[in-house]
Protein backbone atom coordinates (compact mmCIF):
# COMPACT_ATOMS: atom_id res chain seq x y z
CA UNK A 1 0.00 0.00 0.00
CA UNK A 2 1.65 3.19 -1.21
CA UNK A 3 0.60 6.57 0.12
CA UNK A 4 1.04 10.04 -1.34
CA UNK A 5 0.68 13.11 0.86
CA UNK A 6 0.30 16.52 -0.76
CA UNK A 7 1.81 19.32 1.29
CA UNK A 8 2.27 23.07 1.04
CA UNK A 9 4.71 25.49 2.55
CA UNK A 10 2.97 28.60 3.86
CA UNK A 11 3.89 31.83 5.60
CA UNK A 12 4.18 31.43 9.34
CA UNK A 13 0.69 32.13 10.71
CA UNK A 14 2.13 34.83 12.96
CA UNK A 15 4.21 36.55 10.31
CA UNK A 16 3.38 40.18 9.55
CA UNK A 17 1.58 40.48 6.22
CA UNK A 18 2.17 43.27 3.73
CA UNK A 19 0.48 43.73 0.37
CA UNK A 20 2.71 43.14 -2.67
CA UNK A 21 3.30 45.91 -5.21
CA UNK A 22 0.87 44.19 -7.58
CA UNK A 23 -1.89 44.59 -4.98
CA UNK A 24 -2.90 41.02 -5.70
CA UNK A 25 -1.06 38.99 -3.12
CA UNK A 26 1.03 39.33 0.00
CA UNK A 27 4.60 40.46 -0.34
CA UNK A 28 6.82 37.40 0.26
CA UNK A 29 9.84 39.65 0.99
CA UNK A 30 10.80 39.35 4.62
CA UNK A 31 8.07 36.79 5.29
CA UNK A 32 9.02 33.88 7.49
CA UNK A 33 7.74 30.63 6.01
CA UNK A 34 6.69 27.75 8.20
CA UNK A 35 8.20 24.47 7.36
CA UNK A 36 4.87 23.03 6.36
CA UNK A 37 1.16 23.82 6.71
CA UNK A 38 -0.12 22.45 10.04
CA UNK A 39 -2.88 20.31 8.53
CA UNK A 40 -0.43 18.83 6.04
CA UNK A 41 2.05 18.04 8.78
CA UNK A 42 -0.71 16.23 10.69
CA UNK A 43 -1.48 14.34 7.49
CA UNK A 44 2.12 13.26 6.99
CA UNK A 45 2.08 12.01 10.58
CA UNK A 46 -1.12 10.05 9.96
CA UNK A 47 0.39 8.45 6.85
CA UNK A 48 3.56 7.49 8.75
CA UNK A 49 1.51 6.14 11.65
CA UNK A 50 -0.41 3.89 9.26
CA UNK A 51 2.78 2.83 7.54
CA UNK A 52 4.20 1.77 10.89
CA UNK A 53 1.03 0.12 12.19
CA UNK A 54 -0.06 -1.65 9.04
CA UNK A 55 3.22 -2.21 7.21
CA UNK A 56 2.46 0.00 4.24
CA UNK A 57 4.84 0.46 1.33
CA UNK A 58 6.24 3.90 0.68
CA UNK A 59 5.04 7.30 1.85
CA UNK A 60 5.81 9.95 -0.75
CA UNK A 61 5.20 13.68 -0.42
CA UNK A 62 4.44 16.07 -3.26
CA UNK A 63 4.18 19.83 -3.45
CA UNK A 64 3.52 22.45 -6.09
CA UNK A 65 5.44 25.53 -5.08
CA UNK A 66 8.50 27.73 -5.49
CA UNK A 67 12.07 26.51 -4.89
CA UNK A 68 11.90 27.36 -1.16
CA UNK A 69 9.29 24.58 -0.78
CA UNK A 70 12.14 22.08 -0.88
CA UNK A 71 12.57 22.91 2.81
CA UNK A 72 9.02 21.69 3.50
CA UNK A 73 9.64 18.48 1.59
CA UNK A 74 12.94 17.86 3.42
CA UNK A 75 11.01 18.25 6.67
CA UNK A 76 8.54 15.55 5.61
CA UNK A 77 11.49 13.33 4.66
CA UNK A 78 13.02 13.94 8.07
CA UNK A 79 9.71 12.97 9.66
CA UNK A 80 10.01 9.67 7.81
CA UNK A 81 8.60 10.00 4.30
CA UNK A 82 10.57 7.96 1.76
CA UNK A 83 10.65 10.20 -1.29
CA UNK A 84 9.47 13.62 -2.36
CA UNK A 85 8.49 15.44 -5.55
CA UNK A 86 8.62 19.20 -6.07
CA UNK A 87 6.77 20.75 -8.97
CA UNK A 88 8.68 23.99 -9.11
CA UNK A 89 6.74 27.16 -9.84
CA UNK A 90 8.10 30.69 -10.44
CA UNK A 91 8.76 32.52 -7.13
CA UNK A 92 5.61 34.65 -6.94
CA UNK A 93 3.18 32.63 -9.03
CA UNK A 94 -0.38 32.56 -7.67
CA UNK A 95 -2.07 29.42 -8.94
CA UNK A 96 -5.78 28.72 -8.86
CA UNK A 97 -6.46 25.82 -6.46
CA UNK A 98 -8.11 23.75 -9.18
CA UNK A 99 -5.04 24.18 -11.35
CA UNK A 100 -2.86 23.02 -8.46
CA UNK A 101 -5.10 19.97 -8.07
CA UNK A 102 -4.86 19.33 -11.80
CA UNK A 103 -1.05 19.52 -11.73
CA UNK A 104 -0.91 17.25 -8.68
CA UNK A 105 -3.17 14.73 -10.39
CA UNK A 106 -0.93 14.65 -13.46
CA UNK A 107 2.14 13.98 -11.31
CA UNK A 108 0.39 11.47 -9.04
CA UNK A 109 -0.87 9.44 -12.00
CA UNK A 110 2.75 8.44 -12.68
CA UNK A 111 3.34 7.31 -9.09
CA UNK A 112 1.97 4.30 -7.19
CA UNK A 113 -0.97 5.54 -5.10
CA UNK A 114 -3.33 3.37 -3.10
CA UNK A 115 -4.10 6.35 -0.94
CA UNK A 116 -3.69 10.08 -1.60
CA UNK A 117 -3.88 12.31 1.43
CA UNK A 118 -4.14 16.08 1.88
CA UNK A 119 -4.65 18.40 4.83
CA UNK A 120 -8.07 20.04 5.23
CA UNK A 121 -6.83 23.32 3.83
CA UNK A 122 -3.74 25.46 3.63
CA UNK A 123 -3.71 28.17 6.26
CA UNK A 124 -2.76 30.86 3.76
CA UNK A 125 -5.44 30.84 1.05
CA UNK A 126 -7.80 28.60 3.04
CA UNK A 127 -9.31 27.35 -0.20
CA UNK A 128 -9.77 23.74 0.86
CA UNK A 129 -10.42 22.63 -2.71
CA UNK A 130 -7.53 20.37 -3.58
CA UNK A 131 -8.65 17.09 -1.98
CA UNK A 132 -12.10 16.90 -3.56
CA UNK A 133 -10.84 18.20 -6.90
CA UNK A 134 -7.99 15.66 -6.89
CA UNK A 135 -10.56 12.90 -6.40
CA UNK A 136 -12.41 14.06 -9.48
CA UNK A 137 -9.29 14.44 -11.63
CA UNK A 138 -7.92 11.06 -10.58
CA UNK A 139 -11.30 9.37 -10.96
CA UNK A 140 -11.20 8.28 -7.31
CA UNK A 141 -13.61 8.63 -4.39
CA UNK A 142 -12.77 11.53 -2.05
CA UNK A 143 -13.53 11.84 1.64
CA UNK A 144 -13.14 15.07 3.64
CA UNK A 145 -13.08 16.35 7.23
CA UNK A 146 -11.64 12.98 8.22
CA UNK A 147 -10.37 12.73 11.79
CA UNK A 148 -8.77 9.30 11.67
CA UNK A 149 -8.61 6.32 9.37
CA UNK A 150 -7.82 2.62 9.36
CA UNK A 151 -7.37 0.65 6.18
CA UNK A 152 -8.87 -2.81 5.79
CA UNK A 153 -6.65 -4.03 2.97
CA UNK A 154 -8.47 -7.35 2.61
CA UNK A 155 -11.87 -5.80 1.99
CA UNK A 156 -10.29 -2.80 0.26
CA UNK A 157 -12.16 -0.31 2.40
CA UNK A 158 -11.10 2.51 4.66
CA UNK A 159 -12.77 2.84 8.02
CA UNK A 160 -12.95 6.50 8.87
CA UNK A 161 -14.41 9.10 11.19
CA UNK A 162 -15.45 12.51 9.94
CA UNK A 163 -16.77 15.73 11.41
CA UNK A 164 -20.22 16.82 10.38
CA UNK A 165 -22.25 19.63 11.91
CA UNK A 166 -23.64 18.42 15.19
CA UNK A 167 -21.59 15.28 15.55
CA UNK A 168 -19.15 12.75 14.24
CA UNK A 169 -19.82 10.06 11.68
CA UNK A 170 -18.13 6.71 11.49
CA UNK A 171 -18.14 5.61 7.89
CA UNK A 172 -16.45 3.36 5.42
CA UNK A 173 -15.58 3.67 1.78
CA UNK A 174 -13.46 1.97 -0.85
CA UNK A 175 -9.89 2.87 -1.77
CA UNK A 176 -7.80 3.85 -3.71
CA UNK A 177 -9.16 7.21 -2.64
CA UNK A 178 -8.27 10.77 -1.72
CA UNK A 179 -8.64 11.66 1.95
CA UNK A 180 -8.66 15.24 3.31
CA UNK A 181 -7.66 15.20 6.94
CA UNK A 182 -8.97 17.56 9.61
CA UNK A 183 -6.69 16.03 12.16
CA UNK A 184 -4.80 12.84 12.77
CA UNK A 185 -4.74 10.42 15.64
CA UNK A 186 -1.33 11.56 16.87
CA UNK A 187 0.47 14.89 17.14
CA UNK A 188 3.12 15.29 14.42
CA UNK A 189 6.52 13.92 15.40
CA UNK A 190 9.54 16.21 15.65
CA UNK A 191 12.34 14.97 13.42
CA UNK A 192 15.48 13.83 15.23
CA UNK A 193 18.87 15.14 14.21
CA UNK A 194 20.00 11.82 12.64
CA UNK A 195 16.76 11.76 10.64
CA UNK A 196 17.26 15.35 9.53
CA UNK A 197 20.70 14.37 8.24
CA UNK A 198 19.35 11.26 6.56
CA UNK A 199 16.62 13.31 4.89
CA UNK A 200 19.26 15.29 3.00
CA UNK A 201 20.14 12.18 1.05
CA UNK A 202 16.63 10.90 0.40
CA UNK A 203 15.38 11.16 -3.20
CA UNK A 204 13.77 14.50 -4.05
CA UNK A 205 12.70 14.87 -7.64
CA UNK A 206 12.16 18.29 -9.18
CA UNK A 207 9.76 18.82 -12.05
CA UNK A 208 9.67 22.28 -13.67
CA UNK A 209 6.17 23.74 -13.94
CA UNK A 210 6.05 23.74 -17.77
CA UNK A 211 6.84 20.01 -17.80
CA UNK A 212 4.02 19.35 -15.31
CA UNK A 213 1.64 21.56 -17.26
CA UNK A 214 2.44 19.60 -20.43
CA UNK A 215 1.27 16.49 -18.62
CA UNK A 216 -1.95 18.21 -17.53
CA UNK A 217 -3.21 18.66 -21.07
CA UNK A 218 -6.44 20.51 -21.76
CA UNK A 219 -8.52 21.39 -18.74
CA UNK A 220 -12.16 20.38 -18.83
CA UNK A 221 -14.76 23.10 -19.31
CA UNK A 222 -14.68 26.22 -21.40
CA UNK A 223 -13.55 29.03 -19.15
CA UNK A 224 -10.03 28.24 -18.00
CA UNK A 225 -7.96 29.41 -16.25
CA UNK A 226 -10.80 29.81 -13.85
CA UNK A 227 -10.51 32.37 -11.13
CA UNK A 228 -8.51 35.57 -11.27
CA UNK A 229 -7.31 37.42 -8.19
CA UNK A 230 -8.19 41.10 -8.45
CA UNK A 231 -7.01 42.30 -5.06
CA UNK A 232 -5.44 41.29 -1.76
CA UNK A 233 -6.25 43.70 1.02
CA UNK A 234 -5.57 44.01 4.73
CA UNK A 235 -8.27 45.25 7.06
CA UNK A 236 -7.57 48.45 8.97
CA UNK A 237 -5.73 47.54 12.16
CA UNK A 238 -8.09 46.67 15.00
CA UNK A 239 -8.43 49.47 17.49
CA UNK A 240 -8.25 47.02 20.37
CA UNK A 241 -11.03 46.31 22.78
CA UNK A 242 -13.11 49.00 24.35
CA UNK A 243 -12.40 48.26 28.00
CA UNK A 244 -15.42 48.22 30.28
CA UNK A 245 -14.42 49.88 33.53
CA UNK A 246 -16.35 49.95 36.77
CA UNK A 247 -16.03 50.09 40.54
CA UNK A 248 -17.53 46.63 40.95
CA UNK A 249 -17.99 43.58 38.72
CA UNK A 250 -21.75 44.27 38.89
CA UNK A 251 -21.24 47.68 37.38
CA UNK A 252 -18.97 46.25 34.66
CA UNK A 253 -21.55 43.63 33.74
CA UNK A 254 -24.29 46.24 33.58
CA UNK A 255 -22.20 48.49 31.32
CA UNK A 256 -21.17 45.57 29.11
CA UNK A 257 -24.76 44.49 28.54
CA UNK A 258 -25.76 48.06 27.75
CA UNK A 259 -22.99 48.32 25.12
CA UNK A 260 -23.88 44.98 23.59
CA UNK A 261 -27.52 45.98 23.30
CA UNK A 262 -27.34 49.62 22.35
CA UNK A 263 -24.00 50.04 20.62
CA UNK A 264 -23.08 46.68 19.06
CA UNK A 265 -26.74 45.62 18.79
CA UNK A 266 -25.90 41.95 19.15
CA UNK A 267 -28.19 41.16 22.06
Amino acid at each position, binding site marked *: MDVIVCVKQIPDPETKLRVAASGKSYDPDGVKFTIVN*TYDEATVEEALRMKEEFGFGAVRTVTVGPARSEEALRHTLAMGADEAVLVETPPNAVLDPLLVARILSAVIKDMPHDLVMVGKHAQDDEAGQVGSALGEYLGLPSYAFVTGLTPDSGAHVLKMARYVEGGEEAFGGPFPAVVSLLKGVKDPRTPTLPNILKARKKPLKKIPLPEALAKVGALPGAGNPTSETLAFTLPPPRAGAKMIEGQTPEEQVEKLLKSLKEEAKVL
Partner: protein
Amino acid sequence: MTLNIIVVTDQRDGTLKGASRESLSEARRVVARAGGGDVVACLVGHNLGKAAEEARHSGASRVLVVDDEKLKAFSAAGYAHAVGLVAAKVPAPHVFLAPDTTMGRELLPRLGARIGGSVATAVTSIAPEADGSLTVQRKVFGGRATETLRLRGTPVITLRPNAFGIDASPASDPPVENVPLGDLPAVAQGVQVTNFTSTRGDTPDLTEAQIVVSGGRGMKTAENFVLVENLAKTLGAAVGASRAVVDAGWRPASFQVGQTGKTVQPQLYLAFGISGAIQHLVGITNSRCIVAVNKDPAAPIFKVADYGVVGDAMTVLPLLTKALTKQ
Protein backbone atom coordinates in the same frame (compact mmCIF):
# COMPACT_ATOMS: atom_id res chain seq x y z
CA MET B 1 -27.75 39.35 -18.04
CA THR B 2 -29.86 36.58 -16.54
CA LEU B 3 -28.29 33.88 -14.40
CA ASN B 4 -29.81 30.66 -13.23
CA ILE B 5 -28.48 29.95 -9.77
CA ILE B 6 -28.51 26.37 -8.60
CA VAL B 7 -28.33 26.29 -4.81
CA VAL B 8 -27.14 22.93 -3.55
CA THR B 9 -28.78 22.82 -0.14
CA ASP B 10 -27.53 20.98 2.93
CA GLN B 11 -30.09 18.96 4.87
CA ARG B 12 -27.91 16.21 6.25
CA ASP B 13 -30.22 15.70 9.20
CA GLY B 14 -33.48 15.87 7.24
CA THR B 15 -34.36 19.54 7.66
CA LEU B 16 -33.06 22.41 5.61
CA LYS B 17 -30.18 24.00 7.52
CA GLY B 18 -30.36 27.73 8.26
CA ALA B 19 -27.22 28.12 6.17
CA SER B 20 -29.08 26.60 3.20
CA ARG B 21 -31.90 29.10 3.55
CA GLU B 22 -29.29 31.83 3.75
CA SER B 23 -27.80 30.61 0.44
CA LEU B 24 -31.26 30.67 -1.18
CA SER B 25 -31.79 34.23 0.10
CA GLU B 26 -28.46 35.39 -1.29
CA ALA B 27 -29.20 33.66 -4.60
CA ARG B 28 -32.38 35.72 -4.89
CA ARG B 29 -30.48 38.92 -4.22
CA VAL B 30 -27.81 38.08 -6.80
CA VAL B 31 -30.41 37.16 -9.41
CA ALA B 32 -32.19 40.46 -8.77
CA ARG B 33 -28.97 42.45 -9.15
CA ALA B 34 -27.94 40.52 -12.26
CA GLY B 35 -31.24 41.27 -13.99
CA GLY B 36 -33.26 38.10 -13.53
CA GLY B 37 -33.11 34.33 -13.65
CA ASP B 38 -34.20 31.34 -11.66
CA VAL B 39 -33.21 30.37 -8.13
CA VAL B 40 -33.19 26.59 -8.23
CA ALA B 41 -33.07 24.69 -4.95
CA CYS B 42 -31.21 21.44 -5.59
CA LEU B 43 -31.71 18.79 -2.92
CA VAL B 44 -29.70 15.58 -3.04
CA GLY B 45 -29.99 12.72 -0.57
CA HIS B 46 -32.60 10.37 0.80
CA ASN B 47 -35.93 10.98 2.57
CA LEU B 48 -36.01 14.60 1.48
CA GLY B 49 -39.78 15.19 1.74
CA LYS B 50 -39.61 17.57 4.68
CA ALA B 51 -36.58 19.50 3.46
CA ALA B 52 -38.08 19.83 -0.05
CA GLU B 53 -41.24 21.26 1.48
CA GLU B 54 -39.13 23.78 3.41
CA ALA B 55 -37.21 24.69 0.23
CA ARG B 56 -40.50 25.55 -1.50
CA HIS B 57 -41.02 28.31 1.05
CA SER B 58 -37.45 29.60 1.25
CA GLY B 59 -37.25 31.78 -1.83
CA ALA B 60 -36.58 29.19 -4.55
CA SER B 61 -38.39 29.61 -7.87
CA ARG B 62 -37.82 25.92 -8.70
CA VAL B 63 -37.20 22.95 -6.42
CA LEU B 64 -35.43 19.98 -7.98
CA VAL B 65 -34.90 16.88 -5.91
CA VAL B 66 -32.79 13.76 -6.36
CA ASP B 67 -34.09 11.48 -3.62
CA ASP B 68 -32.70 7.97 -3.66
CA GLU B 69 -31.75 5.33 -1.14
CA LYS B 70 -28.35 5.08 -2.85
CA LEU B 71 -27.67 8.65 -1.73
CA LYS B 72 -28.31 7.93 1.92
CA ALA B 73 -24.61 8.20 2.78
CA PHE B 74 -23.00 11.42 1.57
CA SER B 75 -20.18 11.06 -0.92
CA ALA B 76 -18.74 13.95 -2.89
CA ALA B 77 -18.55 11.82 -6.04
CA GLY B 78 -22.14 10.59 -5.80
CA TYR B 79 -23.61 13.95 -4.91
CA ALA B 80 -21.62 15.77 -7.60
CA HIS B 81 -23.07 13.30 -10.09
CA ALA B 82 -26.61 13.98 -8.83
CA VAL B 83 -26.14 17.76 -8.96
CA GLY B 84 -25.06 17.27 -12.58
CA LEU B 85 -28.41 15.57 -13.29
CA VAL B 86 -30.24 18.56 -11.82
CA ALA B 87 -28.11 21.03 -13.77
CA ALA B 88 -29.07 19.27 -16.99
CA LYS B 89 -32.70 20.33 -16.32
CA VAL B 90 -31.80 24.02 -15.90
CA PRO B 91 -30.98 26.30 -18.84
CA ALA B 92 -27.47 27.84 -18.86
CA PRO B 93 -25.74 30.06 -17.81
CA HIS B 94 -25.38 28.43 -14.41
CA VAL B 95 -24.03 29.58 -11.09
CA PHE B 96 -23.69 27.01 -8.32
CA LEU B 97 -23.99 28.05 -4.69
CA ALA B 98 -23.93 26.05 -1.47
CA PRO B 99 -23.51 26.91 2.18
CA ASP B 100 -19.93 26.44 3.40
CA THR B 101 -20.89 23.56 5.66
CA THR B 102 -18.78 20.41 5.75
CA MET B 103 -21.00 19.05 2.98
CA GLY B 104 -20.84 22.17 0.81
CA ARG B 105 -17.07 22.49 1.23
CA GLU B 106 -16.50 18.87 0.28
CA LEU B 107 -18.95 18.78 -2.60
CA LEU B 108 -18.53 22.01 -4.55
CA PRO B 109 -14.80 21.78 -5.35
CA ARG B 110 -15.45 18.31 -6.74
CA LEU B 111 -18.36 19.64 -8.76
CA GLY B 112 -16.19 22.53 -9.94
CA ALA B 113 -13.46 20.18 -11.08
CA ARG B 114 -16.03 18.03 -12.84
CA ILE B 115 -17.64 20.79 -14.87
CA GLY B 116 -14.55 22.97 -15.33
CA GLY B 117 -16.05 25.69 -13.16
CA SER B 118 -14.47 28.57 -11.35
CA VAL B 119 -14.46 27.78 -7.64
CA ALA B 120 -14.29 30.01 -4.56
CA THR B 121 -14.97 28.78 -1.03
CA ALA B 122 -16.36 30.54 2.03
CA VAL B 123 -17.05 33.80 0.26
CA THR B 124 -18.48 36.76 2.18
CA SER B 125 -19.83 38.83 -0.73
CA ILE B 126 -20.98 38.28 -4.31
CA ALA B 127 -21.37 40.97 -6.96
CA PRO B 128 -22.60 40.20 -10.48
CA GLU B 129 -20.75 41.95 -13.33
CA ALA B 130 -22.19 43.10 -16.65
CA ASP B 131 -20.42 40.31 -18.59
CA GLY B 132 -22.01 37.56 -16.50
CA SER B 133 -18.94 36.95 -14.35
CA LEU B 134 -19.03 37.38 -10.58
CA THR B 135 -16.74 39.29 -8.25
CA VAL B 136 -16.49 37.65 -4.84
CA GLN B 137 -14.62 38.36 -1.63
CA ARG B 138 -13.29 35.89 0.88
CA LYS B 139 -11.19 36.00 4.03
CA VAL B 140 -7.74 34.42 3.98
CA PHE B 141 -4.90 33.94 6.48
CA GLY B 142 -7.28 33.25 9.33
CA GLY B 143 -9.23 36.42 8.72
CA ARG B 144 -6.10 38.59 8.55
CA ALA B 145 -6.60 39.51 4.90
CA THR B 146 -9.27 39.64 2.21
CA GLU B 147 -9.03 38.33 -1.30
CA THR B 148 -11.15 39.69 -4.16
CA LEU B 149 -11.62 37.26 -7.05
CA ARG B 150 -13.26 37.40 -10.46
CA LEU B 151 -14.97 34.13 -11.36
CA ARG B 152 -15.54 33.55 -15.06
CA GLY B 153 -17.13 30.63 -16.87
CA THR B 154 -19.37 28.78 -14.46
CA PRO B 155 -18.94 30.15 -10.93
CA VAL B 156 -19.07 27.52 -8.18
CA ILE B 157 -19.22 29.11 -4.75
CA THR B 158 -19.65 28.19 -1.10
CA LEU B 159 -21.04 30.90 1.19
CA ARG B 160 -19.68 31.54 4.65
CA PRO B 161 -22.60 30.96 7.02
CA ASN B 162 -24.00 34.06 8.74
CA ALA B 163 -22.18 36.39 6.32
CA PHE B 164 -25.27 37.14 4.21
CA GLY B 165 -28.47 36.94 6.23
CA ILE B 166 -31.86 35.46 5.51
CA ASP B 167 -34.66 37.55 3.99
CA ALA B 168 -38.31 36.88 4.66
CA SER B 169 -39.12 34.58 1.75
CA PRO B 170 -41.41 35.98 -0.89
CA ALA B 171 -44.63 34.17 -1.66
CA SER B 172 -43.44 31.65 -4.20
CA ASP B 173 -44.66 28.13 -4.05
CA PRO B 174 -43.03 26.10 -6.81
CA PRO B 175 -43.87 22.42 -7.25
CA VAL B 176 -41.27 19.82 -6.33
CA GLU B 177 -39.69 18.34 -9.48
CA ASN B 178 -38.22 14.89 -8.96
CA VAL B 179 -35.12 13.96 -10.93
CA PRO B 180 -34.40 10.21 -11.15
CA LEU B 181 -30.90 9.12 -10.14
CA GLY B 182 -30.51 5.93 -12.16
CA ASP B 183 -27.28 4.12 -11.33
CA LEU B 184 -24.58 5.69 -9.23
CA PRO B 185 -21.25 5.85 -11.05
CA ALA B 186 -18.77 3.20 -9.85
CA VAL B 187 -16.54 5.81 -8.20
CA ALA B 188 -19.41 6.78 -5.87
CA GLN B 189 -20.41 3.32 -4.74
CA GLY B 190 -19.74 1.58 -1.46
CA VAL B 191 -19.77 4.47 1.02
CA GLN B 192 -21.58 3.51 4.20
CA VAL B 193 -22.20 5.40 7.40
CA THR B 194 -21.97 2.97 10.28
CA ASN B 195 -22.49 5.25 13.25
CA PHE B 196 -23.34 8.81 14.17
CA THR B 197 -22.39 10.30 17.50
CA SER B 198 -24.29 13.49 18.19
CA THR B 199 -22.47 16.24 19.99
CA ARG B 200 -25.34 18.64 19.64
CA GLY B 201 -27.15 18.11 22.95
CA ASP B 202 -29.72 20.82 23.48
CA THR B 203 -27.47 23.66 22.33
CA PRO B 204 -27.05 24.89 18.74
CA ASP B 205 -24.12 23.67 16.67
CA LEU B 206 -20.94 25.71 17.13
CA THR B 207 -20.44 26.42 13.46
CA GLU B 208 -24.02 27.61 12.99
CA ALA B 209 -24.65 29.45 16.27
CA GLN B 210 -25.54 33.16 16.43
CA ILE B 211 -23.94 33.40 19.86
CA VAL B 212 -20.99 31.36 21.18
CA VAL B 213 -19.83 31.32 24.80
CA SER B 214 -16.32 29.89 25.21
CA GLY B 215 -14.14 29.09 28.17
CA GLY B 216 -10.39 28.61 28.43
CA ARG B 217 -7.82 27.42 30.90
CA GLY B 218 -8.71 30.44 33.02
CA MET B 219 -11.86 28.53 34.06
CA LYS B 220 -9.46 26.55 36.27
CA THR B 221 -11.47 23.31 36.65
CA ALA B 222 -13.86 21.09 34.72
CA GLU B 223 -16.56 21.87 37.30
CA ASN B 224 -16.27 25.63 36.78
CA PHE B 225 -17.03 25.08 33.11
CA VAL B 226 -20.68 24.70 34.10
CA LEU B 227 -20.68 28.49 34.55
CA VAL B 228 -19.92 28.84 30.84
CA GLU B 229 -22.67 26.39 30.00
CA ASN B 230 -25.22 28.16 32.19
CA LEU B 231 -24.64 31.45 30.42
CA ALA B 232 -24.86 29.69 27.05
CA LYS B 233 -28.16 28.11 28.04
CA THR B 234 -29.55 31.48 29.10
CA LEU B 235 -28.56 32.99 25.75
CA GLY B 236 -29.51 29.99 23.59
CA ALA B 237 -25.85 29.95 22.61
CA ALA B 238 -23.40 27.23 21.64
CA VAL B 239 -20.56 26.31 24.00
CA GLY B 240 -16.94 26.48 22.84
CA ALA B 241 -13.59 25.83 24.44
CA SER B 242 -9.92 26.51 23.87
CA ARG B 243 -7.57 23.65 23.20
CA ALA B 244 -6.17 23.95 26.72
CA VAL B 245 -9.62 22.92 28.00
CA VAL B 246 -9.80 19.96 25.63
CA ASP B 247 -6.24 18.90 26.42
CA ALA B 248 -7.06 19.02 30.12
CA GLY B 249 -9.98 16.69 29.45
CA TRP B 250 -12.57 19.14 30.81
CA ARG B 251 -14.63 18.98 27.63
CA PRO B 252 -14.44 16.78 24.50
CA ALA B 253 -12.64 17.81 21.30
CA SER B 254 -15.94 18.63 19.59
CA PHE B 255 -16.06 21.83 21.70
CA GLN B 256 -12.71 23.10 20.47
CA VAL B 257 -12.62 26.36 18.57
CA GLY B 258 -9.59 27.33 16.51
CA GLN B 259 -7.09 26.09 14.01
CA THR B 260 -7.43 22.42 14.90
CA GLY B 261 -11.03 22.77 16.01
CA LYS B 262 -13.98 24.59 14.56
CA THR B 263 -14.31 27.96 12.88
CA VAL B 264 -17.21 29.93 14.26
CA GLN B 265 -18.99 32.94 12.76
CA PRO B 266 -21.52 34.15 15.29
CA GLN B 267 -22.91 37.63 15.83
CA LEU B 268 -21.44 37.51 19.32
CA TYR B 269 -18.45 35.56 20.68
CA LEU B 270 -17.85 35.66 24.43
CA ALA B 271 -14.45 34.40 25.63
CA PHE B 272 -13.82 33.70 29.31
CA GLY B 273 -10.31 32.95 30.53
CA ILE B 274 -8.90 32.57 27.03
CA SER B 275 -5.52 34.20 26.40
CA GLY B 276 -5.94 34.71 22.65
CA ALA B 277 -3.27 32.51 21.08
CA ILE B 278 -3.16 32.89 17.29
CA GLN B 279 -4.37 29.28 16.89
CA HIS B 280 -7.52 30.16 18.81
CA LEU B 281 -8.00 33.53 17.12
CA VAL B 282 -8.08 32.15 13.57
CA GLY B 283 -11.25 30.30 14.54
CA ILE B 284 -13.08 33.37 15.85
CA THR B 285 -12.13 36.36 13.68
CA ASN B 286 -15.28 35.99 11.58
CA SER B 287 -17.39 36.83 14.61
CA ARG B 288 -19.20 40.14 14.33
CA CYS B 289 -18.55 41.14 17.93
CA ILE B 290 -16.00 39.64 20.32
CA VAL B 291 -16.15 40.10 24.09
CA ALA B 292 -13.22 38.99 26.24
CA VAL B 293 -13.19 38.55 29.99
CA ASN B 294 -9.72 37.95 31.37
CA LYS B 295 -8.00 38.80 34.61
CA ASP B 296 -4.82 39.81 32.81
CA PRO B 297 -5.12 43.31 31.27
CA ALA B 298 -2.25 42.42 28.90
CA ALA B 299 -3.91 39.27 27.51
CA PRO B 300 -3.52 39.28 23.71
CA ILE B 301 -7.22 38.56 23.22
CA PHE B 302 -7.96 42.19 24.12
CA LYS B 303 -6.19 43.23 20.89
CA VAL B 304 -8.84 41.55 18.74
CA ALA B 305 -11.86 41.86 21.02
CA ASP B 306 -14.44 44.61 20.59
CA TYR B 307 -15.20 44.79 24.30
CA GLY B 308 -12.96 43.79 27.17
CA VAL B 309 -13.56 43.24 30.84
CA VAL B 310 -10.59 42.81 33.16
CA GLY B 311 -11.93 40.58 35.84
CA ASP B 312 -12.42 37.14 37.27
CA ALA B 313 -14.43 34.90 34.96
CA MET B 314 -15.83 33.04 37.94
CA THR B 315 -17.39 36.28 39.21
CA VAL B 316 -18.44 37.82 35.90
CA LEU B 317 -20.08 34.69 34.43
CA PRO B 318 -22.73 34.20 37.13
CA LEU B 319 -23.46 37.95 37.17
CA LEU B 320 -24.05 37.94 33.42
CA THR B 321 -26.23 34.86 33.64
CA LYS B 322 -28.25 36.42 36.43
CA ALA B 323 -28.67 39.76 34.66
CA LEU B 324 -29.80 38.05 31.46
CA THR B 325 -32.16 35.64 33.23
CA LYS B 326 -33.93 38.53 34.92
CA GLN B 327 -34.97 40.08 31.62
